[in-house]
C-alpha cells in the first residue's frame, strides 16, 4: 500500500495548483476545473486518512464531496452556457452584474 504521507503530499500539491489556477485565470471553465482540483485534493486527504486509521468515515466524506462536486459542475456549466448565450463571453472580468 502507498504510504499515506505521499498521498497527502499529492493532495497538497493539487490543492496549491487548483488555488493558483482559480486565482490567476479569467476563463470561467478553467476556474471551474481548478475548483474541482481543490475538491479532489481534499478527497485524496480523506482517503489517506481513512487508510491511515482503517476507518470508513473518510470514504463516506469523500463520496459526499464527490456528489457535491458533481452538483456544482452541473450548475456551474449551466450558468456558463446561459452566460455565453446572453453575452457571448465567459471571461470572468466581463461578468460583473447579477442581471441580464
Amino acid at each position, binding site marked *: 500500500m502507498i504510504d499515506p504521507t505521499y498521498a497527502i503530499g499529492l493532495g497538497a500539491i493539487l490543492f496549491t495548483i487548483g488555488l*493558483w489556477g482559480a486565482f490567476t485565470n479569467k476563463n470561467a471553465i478553467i476556474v471551474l476545473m481548478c475548483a474541482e482540483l481543490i475538491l479532489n485534493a481534499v478527497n485524496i486527504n480523506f482517503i489517506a486518512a481513512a487508510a491511515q486509521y482503517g476507518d470508513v468515515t473518510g470514504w463516506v466524506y469523500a463520496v459526499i464531496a464527490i456528489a457535491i462536486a458533481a452538483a456544482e459542475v452541473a450548475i456551474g456549466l449551466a450558468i456558463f452556457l446561459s452566460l455565453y448565450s446572453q453575452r457571448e463571453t465567459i471571461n470572468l472580468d466581463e461578468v460583473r452584474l447579477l442581471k441580464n
Partner: protein
Amino acid sequence: MKLLNSLAYFGLIVMGLVIIATVSTDSIWEDEAQGSPTTGELANALLLDWPFAFLMLGVLLAMALVGAAYLVRDERKENLEWEINGGEL
C-alpha cells in the same frame, strides 16, 4: 502590477510548501497505516450509519440536475411552437 503578480505566485508556492510540510509532519502519520476499509464496509456505512446524508445527496443531485436543465432551457420561438404543437412545426 507585474511585481504584484510575482508576489502572488511566490506566496502561493510558499503556501503550498507550508501545507505539504505541515500535513506531512503531523503526528497522526507516525503510526503504522492500518489499511484501507473494504467496499462492503463503505456500503454498510452509507446505508446504515449515514442514511440521511445519503438521501440528502440524492435530493441535492436531483435539484442540481433540474436547476441545470432549467438554466439551459431554450426559449427560442420555434422551439416553443414545436412544444406547443406536440412535436410538429
